[in-house]
């Protein structure tokens, strides 16, 4: 095994945009982007390479994108379709190796060690995967093959789009040395600036520094970036990387000041996130509310519950209190996030007293947040199981909390 790289990084090229162009072939060759409308203050989620030539990139406000590229073809995102394609791609990966660590819908790390006798070495598997993706989805992927995760990711990016780059053990130095330090995962704008001020611009120069010196200047992250500069990265491909959080946030077309309306939206998001958690068999403990003012000031408030939940009403009960701590005034964005996730089948120590006298570590106990009795919680959870079945069959709007039912739904 030594000497041959076994880690693959597969990254789809301009994923959302490519899916759209595939389905609307008349758009081929045009600058295409997927994102929210400029009038609704949308942002670009993905841009085709033709659009990128104009400087359009993801996370850019659509207004800016339109200014850079007046002929931009803007399409609304269709996440259901992307998820569908993503499943196809992931299943191609899994047909070659069980060790797949998805990073997003269109990106994953694969470890092919142990699969050589079945499918050939990592390079052969990489080529086969690229061929399968093109044949089954009509889309193009860039692939990096290297001995470590960091190098594999770097490799897939080097020849993008439609790239296939292998970094062998003896090539590590010659590939890394000329690259700018910003290419190192973990070197952000501020670290880069500090490195520049030391006269360090390339990875080769960083690797040439004494490790102790880098650690002294940058702390523990210094050890990390120095290792990466030497191509050292012990992280393994983790096929079971647990999800850390689920959330939902929306930027409004127009700023909203009405607190009641904001709370209704917040409740909707909580229900949505809760449904998502239940669907994935997860439950969370920490609730965070995020709000952004028209002047782009972002406010977040969070609290940890005394026990995990995946019930919309429970999440909202806390989210509402957190929202009350957000100063009044118009908001351009509102969202809720649930973290501290665990599998719903996680074992729990039973408590003796239902009256809240159980040992509560969190803030919940102190702030008088009435903890639900386990009995009530259990009943609510059982009701949700039934409701979720209906939602999955007839649509999410079929079952909603009474306070969210508007006149529109009543007909």
């Amino acid at each position, binding site marked *: 095994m030594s000497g041959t790289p076994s880690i693959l990084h597969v990254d789809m090229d301009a994923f959302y945009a490519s899916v759209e162009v595939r389905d609307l072939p008349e758009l081929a060759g045009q600058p295409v982007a997927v994102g929210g409308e400029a009038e609704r203050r949308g942002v670009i989620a993905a841009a085709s390479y033709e659009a990128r030539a104009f400087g359009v990139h993801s996370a850019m406000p659509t207004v800016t994108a339109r200014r850079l590229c007046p002929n931009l073809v803007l399409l609304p995102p269709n996440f259901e379709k992307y998820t569908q394609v993503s499943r196809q791609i992931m299943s191609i990966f899994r047909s070659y190796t069980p060790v797949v660590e998805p990073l997003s819908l269109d990106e994953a790390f694969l470890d092919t060690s142990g699969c050589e006798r079945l499918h050939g070495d990592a390079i052969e598997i990489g080529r086969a995967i690229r061929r399968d993706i093109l044949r089954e989805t009509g889309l193009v992927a860039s692939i990096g093959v290297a001995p470590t995760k960091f190098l594999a990711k770097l490799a897939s990016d080097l020849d993008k789009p439609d790239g296939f780059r292998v970094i062998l053990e003896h090539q590590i130095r010659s590939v890394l040395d000329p690259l700018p330090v910003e290419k190192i995962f973990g070197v952000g704008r501020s670290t880069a600036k500090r490195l520049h001020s030391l006269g360090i611009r390339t990875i080769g120069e960083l690797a040439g520094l004494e490790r102790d010196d880098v650690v002294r200047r940058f702390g523990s992250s210094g050890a990390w970036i120095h290792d990466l500069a030497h191509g050292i990265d012990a992280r393994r491909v983790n096929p079971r990387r647990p999800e850390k959080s689920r959330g939902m946030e929306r930027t409004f077309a127009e700023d909203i000041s009405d607190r009641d309306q904001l709370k209704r939206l917040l409740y909707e998001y909580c229900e949505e996130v809760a449904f998502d958690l239940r669907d994935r068999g997860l439950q969370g403990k920490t609730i965070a509310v995020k709000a952004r003012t028209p002047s782009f000031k972002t406010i977040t408030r969070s609290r940890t519950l005394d026990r995990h939940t995946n019930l919309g009403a429970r999440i909202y009960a806390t989210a509402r209190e957190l929202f009350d701590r957000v100063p009044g005034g118009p908001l351009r964005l509102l969202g809720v996030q649930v973290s501290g996730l665990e599998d719903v089948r996680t074992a729990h120590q039973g408590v003796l*007293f239902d009256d809240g006298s159980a*040992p509560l570590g969190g803030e919940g106990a102190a702030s008088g947040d009435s903890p639900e009795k386990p009995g009530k919680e259990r009943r609510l*959870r059982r009701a949700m199981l039934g409701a979720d079945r209906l939602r999955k069959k007839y649509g999410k709007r079929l079952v909603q909390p009474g306070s969210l039912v508007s006149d529109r739904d009543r007909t």
Partner: protein
Amino acid sequence: MKVLCNREQLREGLAIVNGVIPTKSTRPAIENVCLVATENALELVGTDLEIAIRYRLDDVKVADTGTVLIPARVANEFVRDLSEETVSIDSGGDNCVISSGGDRVELVTIESDEFPVVARFQETHSYPLLAETFNKQIHRTSFAAAREPGRYAMHGILIEIEEGRLRMVATDGRRLAVTSTVIDCPEDAAHRAIVPTKGLQMFSRILSDPMARVRISFEETQFCLKTDNAEIYARLIDGEFPKYSQVVPAEGACKVEADASLLVNKLRLASTVTSADARAVRLVFTEDHIELLARATGRGRATGQMDASYQGSEVDIAFNPDFLIDGLKQCESDRVHLEFNDRTSPGKFQLGQDYTYVVMPITIDT
């Protein structure tokens, strides 16, 4: 003040009083031990404002009576390392000299009126009992009291007198120990106090002679204990103790009897694979047999087997092994009796006469 005393007794007294005295306090006077010499005794007084202790040395020769405050830590360490039989304590002006043989330390003293007033034992609402009896109740319960931050009242042990019995209860919300014993008191005596666990553990330290007659007393804001040569006071926890009687199950459908120390042994070996944050051992009961199972994702699994008397169909229940071991170590007979209804209801362990331990199981929500 001028006193001659026995080194061993002084050493013992200072060590006990030091168990209460804080090393660092916002009120520096209480980092001192207060020495009070009366006609025929020397009293050592220490407090952390929650617990106060008076420890009396009788075998002393008092030449001059008086009161002096000296740094507790230094005095304790100096006296601990002395080797001569007799120690002299001599204070005057603003210093105090402790000497023995050729060894001596001269300590700067501070004004004794800066020391808080420590109450005297009140005989009203006080009841006699054997030191051993009270000590046993403390040991039977204190291990189950809460340690981690949470509800304040559970950081104490509930002490009740009701219908001629002294009852003590401790819980951390997941397990509960309750014990009671007959006490010599008027029939209508009724008291209730929540005493900090740490305080009661100090009480235990002065109950060195098991056969000594001691008195406990319930006061408005404190609970007190008096022995022949010591008095100790613990400020009560002002809070609501959980309604414990409701959670002690009457009788369980499944009844098991097993060797207590063998069960501890099997729990230990099965739990070796579990991680610190997911401690669980499943006990599967079949006819005259217990199988113990533990597993941890990414670590492995372990099983243990033992005989036990059990009649009925196969049942299982999972517990935190540490909770069970804590309780089983207190078991006063070779055999422990366990009762429970199903895998989601509490397990009730009979650890001795009038001594029950209740543990909530570990369950998986479905």
